């Protein structure tokens, strides 16, 4: 698909603004009613999904040019997808998230590149990671861990640490804890160490589709060579990439993909891990976008648009629903509920209408102030529950929430769910 292929979708937008809000029925307060960080921060209608769809139409019609200002509007968005999930409550006719992806791809194809992201992409091309760090240091997080090296050995399960966990030393306990827990449960797990590469998902969201394909193929081949059947990630972004993006570019991507929260829930249920120690904390949980609403497994659709009398536009066959229904919402919550002594409370914006942490879509790299602003909003929401800690299941969320808590002087603690499970064992 190309941007031009979405022209009819753009023409049919009813400008209802549902893309800006938590679904009406789920709004619980004035304060936490908005769901799109971009319009919430910048206020111009243009910064909403609807506004971007309408501006994309103007671009197609030749009414505006792709200049630096438009580039800025296109990229000041985390692509967290709440807008899209909301829009689909009513219809599949607009598809704002796909349009916003296509806008970015058009920017890249036509050479309109955001300088802040060019540095990141250059780093990726050189060092195979999104952190602008040396490739040789990628496996350092696992130093001293007794874990299989899948460049030399074989295992049923690969733990793909991902870029953030591999290089963000403050978050290493999450990666190490993941391996420790899996091994404790008797899982035959290994890692790719310094030969692990980026998943490509974040590059794709920046508009670089070619990078996604390249890394998808690379990872597929590496995992096949290691005899892997199951890929485990502890990263929301990585999970969304493997579930949603890889099947789009690799029809033969047939590994079982599990987020660590799903796997741990399973292992606890099977009594392979016993959560016995009290963790006396009051906590709330932040749903990462790519683990939740954007973590749905991609289902291919090939069909045609058809106009019935009415006129009613339908797709034949029907498009698979993408309402965020099959996102990973319960496993992390079930884990939290099974930790002795832990009190779990919900925030207002949760599950498929969760507020983004702020780090997605390249925003943490291109507009760190906007990323922090978005995360501070989440910190405020977490604090309103009376929780002393916010728990998440993605290192990108974790990093930006930690930074935002620190910047705002909040004493709210930020943990990954793996860390809490480890405390409970």
């Amino acid at each position, binding site marked *: 698909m190309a941007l031009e292929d979405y*022209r*009819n979708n753009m*023409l*049919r*937008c*009813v*400008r*209802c*603004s*549902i893309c*800006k*809000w*938590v*679904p*009406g*029925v*789920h*709004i*619980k*307060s*004035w304060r936490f*009613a908005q769901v799109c960080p971009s319009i919430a921060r910048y*206020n*111009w*209608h*243009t910064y909403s999904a*609807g*506004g*971007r769809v*309408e*501006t994309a*139409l*103007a671009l197609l*019609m*030749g*009414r*505006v*040019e792709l*200049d630096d*200002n*438009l580039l800025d*509007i296109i990229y000041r968005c985390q692509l967290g997808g709440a807008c899209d999930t909301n829009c689909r*409550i*009513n*219809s599949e*006719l*607009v598809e704002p998230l796909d349009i916003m992806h296509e806008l970015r791809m058009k920017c890249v194809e036509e050479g309109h590149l955001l300088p802040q992201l060019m540095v990141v992409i250059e780093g990726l091309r050189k060092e195979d990671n999104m952190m602008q760090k040396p490739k040789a240091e990628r496996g350092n997080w696992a130093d001293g861990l007794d874990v299989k090296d899948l460049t030399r050995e074989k295992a049923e399960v690969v733990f793909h640490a991902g870029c953030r966990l591999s290089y963000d030393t403050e978050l290493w306990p999450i990666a190490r804890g993941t391996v420790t827990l899996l091994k404790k449960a008797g899982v035959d797990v290994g890692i790719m160490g310094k030969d692990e590469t980026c998943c490509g998902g974040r590059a794709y969201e920046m508009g670089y589709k070619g990078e996604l394909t390249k890394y998808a193929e690379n990872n597929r081949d590496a995992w096949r060579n290691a005899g892997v059947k199951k890929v485990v990630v502890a990263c929301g972004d990585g999970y969304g990439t493997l579930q949603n993006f890889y099947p789009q570019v690799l029809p033969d991507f047939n590994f079982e993909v599990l987020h660590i929260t799903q796997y741990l829930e399973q292992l606890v249920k099977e009594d392979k891990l016993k959560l016995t120690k009290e963790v006396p904390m009051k906590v709330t949980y932040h749903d990462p976008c790519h683990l939740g609403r954007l973590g749905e497994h991609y289902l291919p659709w090939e069909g045609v648009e058809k*106009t*019935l*009398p*009415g*006129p*009613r*536009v339908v797709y034949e066959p029907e498009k698979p629903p993408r*309402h*965020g*229904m099959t996102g990973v919402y319960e496993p992390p919550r079930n884990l939290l509920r099974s930790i002795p002594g832990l009190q779990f409370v919900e925030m207002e914006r949760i*599950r*498929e209408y969760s507020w983004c942490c702020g780090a997605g879509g390249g925003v943490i790299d291109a507009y760190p102030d906007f990323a922090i602003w978005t995360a501070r909003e989440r910190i405020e929401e977490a604090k309103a529950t009376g929780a002393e800690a916010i728990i998440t299941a993605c290192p990108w969320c974790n990093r930006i929430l930690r930074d935002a808590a620190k910047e705002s002087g909040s004493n709210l603690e930020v943990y990954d769910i793996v860390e809490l499970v480890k405390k409970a064992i």
Partner: protein
Amino acid sequence: LLFQSIKDKEVIKMALPREAYQMLETIVGQENVSEEPAILESYSFYFMQELARRGTGTRLSPWRPSAVILPGSTKEVQDIIKVCNRFKIKSKAQSSGWGPWDGYAQEDTLIIDLRRMNRIIEIDSKNRYAVVEPYVSWAQLHAEVMKLGLTLSMAGVGCHCSVLANYTSGFGMGPGNWSMGVTEKNLLGVEWILPDGEVLKLGSLGSGDGWFCGDGPGLSLRGLLRGEYGAMGGLGVVTKCGVRLYHWPGPPVMPIEGILPDTRLTELPENIKTYLFTFSSLDKQTDFLYQLGRAEIGRFMYCTGYGALVGCVPQLRKYIPLNLGGSISDEVTTWFILACNSPREMEYQEKVLNAIVAETDAKVPDFWDDPLVKATIFRYLIRPDYVFNYFYGFSGGGFLYLSDYIGSPDAIATLHKRVNESAKPWEGKGLLPGCTDATFQPMYDYAHAGYLDGSGSHWDPADPETLKEYGHMMKDITSRLDPQIERPSIGTKYFNEKGGPTLSNYHIWQKRIKRVFDPNYVSDASYYMDPE
């Protein structure tokens, strides 16, 4: 209806005088005013703008606004309007921005986006009113007042739209009108920036007595401010308003769980019950409504044609196919909620309801057992957001009424039938999904009156041919209607000019009001009235 005379690239644009722009920057800060083409383009796009007489055939208008400004306070709005008067700049205010009436008639227009004015100023639960700024949505206010055991009258447009815009400047009815009355009658004190920049306070606010009353002590100018349909931004900017609140005996949060659209009701207290009835004819439904109104029972009520019901509730389509331009059906539906204060009151109201049901042949359809359907109807009645589901069910088209009428249930039923008759030649031609079938028909004040959207109507915004065909059909059908009472929708300058002579020449009064209140003609009046 449709003139595609403007080619894609020929966007018409006009910059503001530099001095004026600099003054606007001083008022709101550089970051809150913009003339960036990419920003302006998204303010050129409005729902149903493809119907504009001078248009592109798409929802993008042929012109861009000259600038968009985001004021954050009443004072800033007032200063902006003064600049507009000084430089004779047209302006148009918008809040949530849904609907063609948010559009504007020419390129040198300053859009005043009221998004930053989004505060709930006050909720007075004891005296049962709330005060809001323009960008507070219904869902936000409803969520807050529910916690206090209160609710408010809402229009059907959708709970993401502005409370203030509907109460003060637009038109629309919804399910709560049954017991709480239409929204404009629930408007209390108002803070209004007149087109010349003066601040006028209406109702009790005007005499310094707070927001509690729309009719004084102090000026009561609601008729002038908004009349029946609202001035749609054609008479200055309303910056705050008070709205009446009502007792809500239900739970403090929406009792809904699950991922939309397939939600379920969580446990509902015994004092809240939801119903859906179908009727084989309009006359039977009218009998039902009269009896229900006489008994003054129930809190929320809404009537639709069968097609509109299926259009709004996607879960129903597995039971009943959408009526895609087939036959014109007489079958109609009523959605209803009893919300009582005590078990004894519930027992009484149920007994009355059952007696009326038995007497009027109201039927409970088989699909009512489906919990997904029940949950959807419940949320549509309590916190409405059904119309967008309906529009998207038909390609994202829109609605133009074959008739647009307020009257007694009998008058509405009669008109309904006459519209059906006029539309008969178009039955089965694939354009008209059936007049009665596609109507929305809210009742207010316990059936003392109701409102008829004579037909939700459809075209595909991506296919100009369907719009042209639709225009031919509308012209043909309306030519057979009596202009005295059967008229297309009022609310645009064009229709006001046409409709005025049939209704006490109200358009002449509008012109006079416009002349007096807007001497420099700076409020865009494309959905109100030109002074001359």
